[in-house]
């Protein structure tokens, strides 16, 4: 069996990539992609911890939580894209640096 630490390292790497993407990119859709990566990093963690038996095996908490997160990520992406489209319609840009009506 692949050791737990490999999964955790993969998840940590994915999380860091996602966080970097979400913080460094100026395109709102690219930020959304970074956020999705972060959510999936947590999914890998949950399933890996479950597989390596941190709790009793018949307790499916980790798996079930991961399924919830997949559904939730879809809902979040839908709302996020809707907001991005609303902004795009008004100003023809989705560059977050140009969202500067509210400042001070």
């Amino acid at each position, binding site marked *: 069996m692949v050791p737990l630490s490999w999964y955790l390292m993969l998840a940590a790497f994915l*999380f860091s990539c996602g966080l970097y993407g979400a913080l460094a990119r100026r395109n709102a859709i690219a930020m959304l992609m970074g*956020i999705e990566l972060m959510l999936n*990093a947590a*999914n890998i*963690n949950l399933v890996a*911890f479950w597989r390596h038996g941190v709790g009793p095996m018949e307790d499916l908490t980790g798996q079930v939580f991961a399924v919830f997160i997949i559904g939730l990520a879809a809902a*979040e992406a839908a709302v*996020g894209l809707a*907001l991005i489209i609303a902004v795009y319609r008004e100003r023809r840009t989705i560059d977050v640096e140009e969202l500067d009506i509210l400042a*001070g």
Partner: protein
Amino acid sequence: MGDLGFIAPEIILLIGGLFVFCLDVAYDPGVGKKSGLSYMALSALFLSAALIAAVLQLDIEEPHVAFSMMTVDRFGSFIKVTIFSGMILTAIAGGRYINRRSGNQGEFWTFFLMVSLAMSIAVSANNLVLVYLAIEFLSITSYMLAGFLRENRRSNEAGLKYFLYGSIASAVMLYGISLLYGATGSLYLNDIAAAFAEIIGDAQEISGLAFAALPAMLLILAGLGFKASLAPFYQWAPDTYDGSPTPVATYLSTASKAAAFAVLARFFVVGMASFEVNWAPVLAAFSIITMTMGNLAALRQNNVKRMLAYSSVAQAGYILMGLVAVTSVSPSAMDGLNGVLLYLFAYLFTNVGAFLVVMALEEAVNSTDISAYQGLIKRAPWLAAMFTVFLLSLTGIPVTGGFFGKFYVFGAAIQRQYFWLAAIGMINAGIAAFYYLRVIQAMFFTQDDEAETLDVPMALQTSLLICTIATIWVGVYPSAVLDWVSDASVQLLTVVP
């Protein structure tokens, strides 16, 4: 089936939200005849029913675990009563505002009820899956409400900014939860606490993943701190409050914040009890940065709505001070948790009131700038008087609720020997007085030549009056609220293993 009775407030709100939604889809009175006010009245009705259900649970004898993931106790019920009251007052006052600006009132009030449902679930949840889902439910609905006026550039910018900051914060929190699951093998707060107590007690044999506990705690704090607008996660707050529809800003700065603090309190006091020595100083640092940043930024605002946004960041810092000073060992009257609850109660009515005054001015003269408030005492004496009460309460002057809130959190900090924390809090309260009093000065002592009397809608006046009465009531006669508060915090603290 017996459990259903215990989650009555949630069921009422769910039915209410779906009912308003279906009504909006099914019933079409013809173009231009749709009245958002009837939807508002329905929402207020369902919220009132939920409020009554929550009040009935205020004197529950023992904490009851419903459906294994919801703890119904006095703590949760008190916060629910607070939240629902704020939502009702906001709904009544905001009906006309939304009616004038949007054609989709049915959707707005559906989301409004759903947001109340999400907050209600969040404050009761005792399992991190449910905590996460409720917080996300609350967040996603709030993103939509903040950006609800689609054609308004300010509103959709506010919505998008809130969305981007918010989903980063909640993804960070989720990663923290996944680490916590790995460290303890459970997501129930009680089991997590028990697992940590075992690890701490048995220092020889620290289990493999216990070291993940502290990073996990910080990551979760980042997510919840975002909802409560703690520094350094508060940057979204001024922009979002400023740009979103004022009724939405009102609940985001009060009810949603109260829910976030309830979740924070339950997570740290119940789940992380073994690590109190670790989290108390971290929270103290957050508290200091939050109040200082909030107050310094508020000082240079000329827009009253934005000033109130920064002020609500600073208030979050004071509330957090109470959480630092929680004594899990021997609950006393001066306990930090009492301070948190009393502060939240007083703050909710005060800040809802303050935002409603902003809404009244926005309706009447379409401006939130401080110049619009000049000579308000001549143009609308009652409005000016009530705003003065709210501003004094936010400053923490005696005879208002804000005074007792501050008194109890500062008292708790001093009792736990956080003298420096209390001292910095006092200095901050002094700084805050400048910008609150500046508005009072504008209202009373500057003349506006083209002064005309303001027309304040009846519904808004009623809400404002209730807020004023509640603010003064807590300030003059706090013992009634204090009884509920201390029962609530004793019940939360005694479940600590």
